[in-house]
């Protein structure tokens, strides 16, 4: 038993982010799509990200209709489904990773229907048992989150809500009040995918969220290289990276290249 076992999922997430909180530092949170390109390769990818300096993990569960995702993740989730990846298998993979000694907090990123179909309460119970600490559900705003919130509260797990550049003051207040673990700040209007640069308004956007809460703010959508991770670190508490990792793992020498990119992202986020 280590000290981690006495903490709730929310606390484990908060603590992992707190370790990196600073003026020019932030947590590095890579996204790994479970079952992609294959079950084994996704497990290896997590190990590789952990070695490269990941502070937390976002684990993607594939869904047939990923309407918040751009072409990279659409193609990848399609492949994961063709591999026969199911919600149950995603939970099993997480368990396997815990058994293999990966200690970073795990957030499940899933669209709502597979969770709804599984049964929200049962899903959270099984996810807790598999070693998950929190959930990110892109098509579940707080307006519809009551059932999930209640079950998460009971299990001590985080339900992370999202904010976007279009969010009004009212929405910022609502989301910051309900989000636990951290706030997922979507940096751009649009879907997931690599972007050449981060938008100029990002600093003000983070400041707006911070003015309403002490909950950490992690930035995702578009963060794709070490420089951008460092930019995010200078204003926020975490940098979330998905599409850039997937594009890279699909390229030449994928496994090595993605580890190299992860190191640069971690260095950028960690301020060295």
């Amino acid at each position, binding site marked *: 038993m280590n000290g981690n076992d006495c903490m709730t999922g929310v606390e484990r997430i908060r603590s992992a982010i707190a370790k990196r909180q600073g003026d020019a530092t932030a947590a590095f949170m890579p996204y790994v799509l479970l079952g992609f390109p294959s079950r084994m390769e996704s497990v290896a990818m997590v190990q590789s990200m952990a070695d490269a300096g990941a502070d937390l993990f976002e684990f993607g569960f594939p869904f047939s*209709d990923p*309407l918040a995702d751009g072409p990279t993740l659409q193609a990848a989730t399609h492949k994961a489904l063709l591999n026969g990846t199911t919600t149950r298998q995603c939970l099993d993979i997480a368990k396997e990773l815990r058994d293999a000694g990966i200690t970073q907090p795990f957030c499940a990123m899933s669209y709502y229907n597979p969770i709804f179909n599984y049964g929200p309460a049962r899903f959270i119970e099984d996810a807790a048992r598999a070693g998950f600490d929190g959930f990110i559900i892109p098509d579940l705003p707080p307006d519809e989150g009551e059932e999930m919130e209640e079950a998460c509260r009971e299990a001590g797990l985080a339900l992370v809500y999202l904010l976007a550049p279009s969010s009004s003051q009212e929405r910022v207040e609502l989301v910051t009040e309900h989000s636990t673990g951290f706030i997922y700040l979507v940096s751009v209007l649009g879907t997931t995918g690599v972007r050449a640069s981060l938008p100029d308004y990002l600093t003000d956007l983070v400041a707006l969220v911070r003015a309403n809460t002490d909950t950490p703010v992690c930035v995702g959508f578009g963060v794709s290289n070490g420089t951008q991770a460092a930019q995010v670190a200078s204003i926020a508490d975490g940098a979330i990276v998905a599409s850039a990792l997937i594009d890279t793992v699909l390229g030449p020498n994928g496994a090595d290249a993605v580890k190299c990119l992860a190191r640069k992202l971690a260095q950028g986020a960690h301020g060295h």
Partner: protein
Amino acid sequence: MVDSMQAIFSADDYGVHYPDSRGKFGPYGGKYVPETLIPALEELEEIHATAMQDAGFQDELNSLLETYVGRPTPLTHARRLTEHFGGPEIYLKREDLAHTGAHKINNALGQALMVKRILGKNRVVAETGAGQHGVAVATVCALLDMECVVYMGSVDMARQAPNVFRMRLLGADVREVSSGSQTLKDAINEAIRDWVTNVPDTHYLLGSALGPHPFPVMVRNLQSVIGREARRQMLDPSVGPGQLPDVVVACVGGGSNAIGMFYPFVMDPGVRLLGVEAGGRGIESQKHAARFADPKMGRLGVLHGTRSYVLQDEDGQIALTHSISAGLDYASVGPEHALLRDRERAEYFYCTDEQALAGFELLCRQEGIIPALESAHAVGWLPELMSDVSSDDVVLVSLSGRGDKDLDTVMAELAPGA
């Protein structure tokens, strides 16, 4: 004269008012969307409420419905069809005679006008399955001088080729969607992705009584012109039978022509409301779009922002659907239909491809009307219905569109190799 939108509000006098302020029809409906879109949905709720009460807006909409769309559409007494069955008198509400050939224009015109006049947005994106909604949107965008992008699955582009050409003639940018099942559901995904990206200047003109609140109620209100006219025409002895129908039949894809037809009759307890879904090659084959009829795949779920019945696999992945009619080929159904069904206010059946084709041919031969394959599902249910009604009953059928767009499909089915 076009029946005014105001009449809708008296319909709520019958007791309960759905949806509630959170966009729920009982356990159905809601707003399951990325946070990015919430402000746009809140804005839509506001302009919908404003538009419903703004006499100037209503006048402009009604005048366009009359002088541009050609409303009211006629009520036709289907004498030979009645004779054919030797049973109840059958009447057809002729949405096929509306401009662009289907009921879809009622909604497209209403939404576009709201967005243009009240919000000042000038770019519209839309999804289309059969192409009828896409053609309607392209048409009103030409009329109102708005930029128009239509997303359409590759499979649907192939089977509804004439409509693709029509949209392009009308100035729309038709974009092919080759992801997923390459049909309506994937076109909706892509339209939503465009909307998320361009939300400050873009309106998503959703084509059925589906999606996140306020779309289901907004589309229902705009389509209820069908039922309001039909109800008045039925009651008027110089046009119709001079009585309310005993049974109303409509096909149900997302559910907009059906809800538009049903809603004004909901308070008339003697009127049976029947929706007909696409049974494809039969429920057993799993190649269908009958959300209510398949206890295994059709379960409560969340798709495209709303909670309703959804065809899905054991793992909650959305099922691939099949129907001979592109406009009914969709995995979910409007939330208000799910509520009407729970309350036993409406009943839902399905027609197979074969029954729909039989309905198609029957209406061609008996009435000289070539129906859309979607509408042919309502006609195709009539033989079954006959055992369930008495011969002095009156049946009203929603003829939601005309079939010119479907000639290639029907030719391939009825005269293969010809």
